[in-house]
């Protein structure tokens, strides 16, 4: 995985809420389909440590943050609209 192409994604969730679960599932699906082998996902559970929300000023949950490639991008929601997610993360569909 080259730096140039790798995606570093961080998903902020709140424990086992319906949308948190949905977001995790949807994200995995999108990444597997459109970024095979080129992604890294970090799941941050704010129920466990709310202070972590400060890093990216998270207000809404779930929120997906694309850390790499820069610039930072943010998508709020359960990521059920794949098309929107691709556009939001600037990923060319596979």
């Amino acid at each position: 995985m080259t730096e140039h192409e790798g995606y570093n994604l961080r998903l902020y969730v709140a424990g086992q809420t319906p949308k948190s679960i949905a977001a995790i599932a949807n994200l995995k699906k999108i990444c597997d389909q459109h970024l095979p082998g080129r992604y890294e996902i970090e799941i941050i559970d704010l129920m466990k440590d709310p202070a972590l929300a400060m890093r990216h000023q998270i207000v809404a949950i779930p929120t997906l943050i694309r850390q790499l490639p820069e610039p930072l991008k943010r998508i709020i929601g359960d990521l059920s609209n794949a098309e929107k997610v691709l556009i939001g993360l600037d990923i060319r569909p596979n």
Partner: protein
Amino acid sequence: MSPDDPKLPLFADADETIQAIHQGDIDAIVVTRSLEGPQVILLHGAEEPYRVLVERMSDGALTAGPDGVILYVNDRLCELTGCPSARLVGRDLVSLFEGEPPTLVPEVTAEASLSRNGQHAMPVAVWSRPISIGGTMATLVRLTDLSIHRRAEQIAAAERFARSVLEQATEAVVVLSPDGRITHASWRAEQLAERPPSGCTFSEAFPLEAQSAEGTGTLARFSAENLDAMLATRPFHGVEVKLRGKSNAKSAYLLSAGPLIDDNKATVGSIVTLTDITERKHAEEQQTMMVAELNHRVKNILAIVQSVAAQTMRSSGSLESFSDAFTGRLKALAIAHDVLTETRWIGIGLSELLTAVLAPYRSSDESRVSIVGSAIMLPARAVVPLSMVLHELATNAAKYGALSTRRGNIEITWQVTGDIEKSIELIWQERGGPQVKAKTSTGFGTKLIERVVRHDLDGNAKIDFDPAGVRWRIGFPVGGLAGSHAEAFGSFTA
């Protein structure tokens, strides 16, 4: 608000979040409360999340429909306006404002005046954004209390002003908090204080001398603690005090205190000043002394005049002779006082006095009355008595003695004896006049001379009826006081 205002990004996110809630995309939010730190709050239902978010905003917020009618207000807005939500919902948005209502341009902050129930209008920043609620276009309006910012700015400006006033003050000024501790001090106050004044009570920084009952008795009754409490709460007007502290030993001050009042007319401390009145007090003391001295002298003169009048009366056969004699003596007295005034009552040289008193007899021919002797200063207290004596001597000489004929003359000489305690031995020698017999002259004049020399000059006078001419020997001390004035210029001939 400028585009650089750090608050802007957060506004944008809040709006995005509201949208996300409406669209049902999220089911939890992070809320940060200052004391507790961030917390995750789970949301239920469709409308509920929106309300929760807006409720938790620290600004006033409302939703207005497309026609400008208020649909919803948060608690904070009720607080700001002083109206319950029932009184706000259903009203026109513009009715919330005093004067010009703000023009709502999406995501642009405007300033306006928010009407408040029973209070002054509050300056607010107004930010708005169109949102969709269940498919209908509405406007989210957020109102931020600017008065807090303004108040903080005003306070900062007032603080700067107060500091600069204190810095310019030439007197010692301190500001006390309501609990009696010094919060501000002028430069002069810092100099006067026993220790760095900040944080101390007034008594700790400026210990006062316990006052004697005379002048400033009011302060003597209070202990240091009581004084501090009084200074913080009650006005004082110009109480004289002395600072206890070796460097301030001689200085007197005027202590004044007045309350410090804020906008709401509440007392928030006091301002205490210490005005240096040392010079003023000194001047006052001098003044008092001078007045007392003057009084004393006037009484003296009146007493002399009275005595002269009484005694002249006793020896005068007629009113006319009384008038002549009395007038003569008063004139001599007046001359003596003129002389004293010219030297500001310090004293005068014997030679100068003789010259002044005997001037009338030397006007056509100075050698008629010769005055020879060393320079010696007479103390003020000797001037009048000696003048009176000289007047009598001259009058007698004019009536019966050397000055009654053209050939006669008077020779006045004197010697100064002694070192620190000097004495004058003056000789009045008449020559060339008709022979004066003892009997002719033991009148009032002689008695006066003897009495005055004895009582007023502490000296002695002796008359000698020499066939060549009358001779008076008059000796008197010029005392310790004169010692400081006596100067030897060397022989002096007038």
